[in-house]
């Protein structure tokens, strides 16, 4: 059996990347949202695009701390994703690749296996870590032996070393900082300093995406942000959406107070770079953990020494946080300064950091051994869930 395409679902804690392997993926919010303005209906996944006024959105997420906890929410969002409205699929004639977090808890793994075989009538299932797909994607284009995959997502940031295509478990490192912590911290800081935006996760998340960058010299940028007038090249105003003429906020230079009085703005100064800085110094908000470059070194140090060189030469970054301008350069510079002089260091930013793992799914489907990685419905009925635990390396 060999179908012409498979269905790939990179089931993230904030967005799911979904679609057939012969098409482009859709990025769908993996949550249900409720708006103050529309009392009648909750918005599932991409339905939020139909919402006229997205202020004060209330989130219901299937994931908590990076793990699938709220099954009723997930089932509702999945039903939406697999329906005509989003990306329709019939799993009885299409294999499925679905991603799971590293060290996913066994009862969650069991539940996913059960729900896809018994509820969605799946015929072939491959459960796999998103980092495995990313590594596969990288290895297919670089032909390398070892890779360090850095996945900086919504719930946390994982650093996973791979040796000869296999993840080296003793080297896996997790930093409990992801996009969610960044947005919440920005909300907290702005609410104290300027305007209460604690209820505006959706809007402030966009403000973060539109305004923040990773500093290359943190203390120097702090000094610039302290300057007055035109010498301060960092301070900007973020125009907030009003949902009549402005649907999405935007960053603009500071204008004289008498102009544009109608627009409500937030002034962003050191917030622009001290927020993403948490990925490099989690201790800035009291999370007693290493930042990304130090964690990369810690991870590599846990691997067999003969692989150090090759690992340092193949560091790949993906996940939503990688979109911050300056992210790759900062990681490169810090790893370069931490690594021994005679090693080369190569840090690659994924072309499209959000869908990089999904694209890896596309590649792995073309692998001649693809079906040997999967569990089929017959196998599941014959041998039960134990087989899935054996075959999938989660």
């Amino acid at each position: 059996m060999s179908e012409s395409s498979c269905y790939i679902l990179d089931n993230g804690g904030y967005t799911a990347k979904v679609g057939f392997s012969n098409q482009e993926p859709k990025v769908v919010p993996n949550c249900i949202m409720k708006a103050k303005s529309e009392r009648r209906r909750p918005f599932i996944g991409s339905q939020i695009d139909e919402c006229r006024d997205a202020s004060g959105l209330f989130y219901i997420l299937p994931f908590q701390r990076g793990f699938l906890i709220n099954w009723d929410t997930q089932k509702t969002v999945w039903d939406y994703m697999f329906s005509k409205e989003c990306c329709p699929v019939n799993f009885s004639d299409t294999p499925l690749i679905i991603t799971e977090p590293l060290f996913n808890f066994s009862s969650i793994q069991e539940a996913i296996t059960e729900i896809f075989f018994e509820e969605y009538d799946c015929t072939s299932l491959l459960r796999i870590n998103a980092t495995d797909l990313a590594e596969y994607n990288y290895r297919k284009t670089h032909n390398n032996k070892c890779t360090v995959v850095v996945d900086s997502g919504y719930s946390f940031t994982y650093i996973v070393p791979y040796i000869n295509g296999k993840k080296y478990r003793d080297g896996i490192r997790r930093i409990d900082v992801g996009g969610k912590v960044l947005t919440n911290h920005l909300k907290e800081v702005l609410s104290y300093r300027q305007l209460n935006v604690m209820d505006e996760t959706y809007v402030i998340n966009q403000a973060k995406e539109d305004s923040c960058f990773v500093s290359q010299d943190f203390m120097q940028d702090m000094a610039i942000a302290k300057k007055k007038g035109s010498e301060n090249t960092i301070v900007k105003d973020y125009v907030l959406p009003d949902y009549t003429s402005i649907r999405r906020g935007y960053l603009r230079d500071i204008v004289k107070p008498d102009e544009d009085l109608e627009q409500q703005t937030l002034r962003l100064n050191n917030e622009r770079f001290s927020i993403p800085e948490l990925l490099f110094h989690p201790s800035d908000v009291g999370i007693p953990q290493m930042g990304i470059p130090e964690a990369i070194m810690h991870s590599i140090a846990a691997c067999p020494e003969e692989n150090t060189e090759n690992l340092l030469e193949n560091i790949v970054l993906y996940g939503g946080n990688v979109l911050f301008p300056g992210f790759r350069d900062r990681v490169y510079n810090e790893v370069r300064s931490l690594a021994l002089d005679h090693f080369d260091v190569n840090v690659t930013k994924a072309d499209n950091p959000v869908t990089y793992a999904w694209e890896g799914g596309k590649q792995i489907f073309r692998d001649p051994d693809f079906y040997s990685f999967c569990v089929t419905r017959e196998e599941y009925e014959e041998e039960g869930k134990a087989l899935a635990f054996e075959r999938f390396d989660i």
Partner: protein
Amino acid sequence: MAGVRGRETDRRKVLDDAARKRRARKAVEALEQDNFHEDPHADLVMSKKVPKFAESNEKPTRKKKSKSAEYYKLRFRKTFAQLVEEDASFRPEPPNYMSAQVPPSKFPERHFCAVCGFPSNYTCIPCGARYCSVRCLGTHLDTRCLKWTA
């Protein structure tokens, strides 16, 4: 004058280490929260059938009836804490979820003003927060310092 004196009595009250740690832990926990306000539809009485998809009514292609979202909620109900506990017996030896967490950095901690976010050199005596200038200290004392402790 009264205001200044009021501050002085406040200042004698100093939070102990445990209270400071509790505060810090709460602040970190808040960073994991999904919402800070109530469900805006909480007061609505909604029929259990909502939301439903128009398509699913038109063509009943699936032979067996699909199970409701509510069914799966009950079927797989486990909290994060339960799952972590369960994992400790399922995967007791590292590497596992707990062991993968990175240790503290070996670089020194940096300190920032709790008011303006710029690097700070001073510590508020009552609560241990950081501040950078007399002006920020004033704002801090007026707004946050011991406001939320009984």
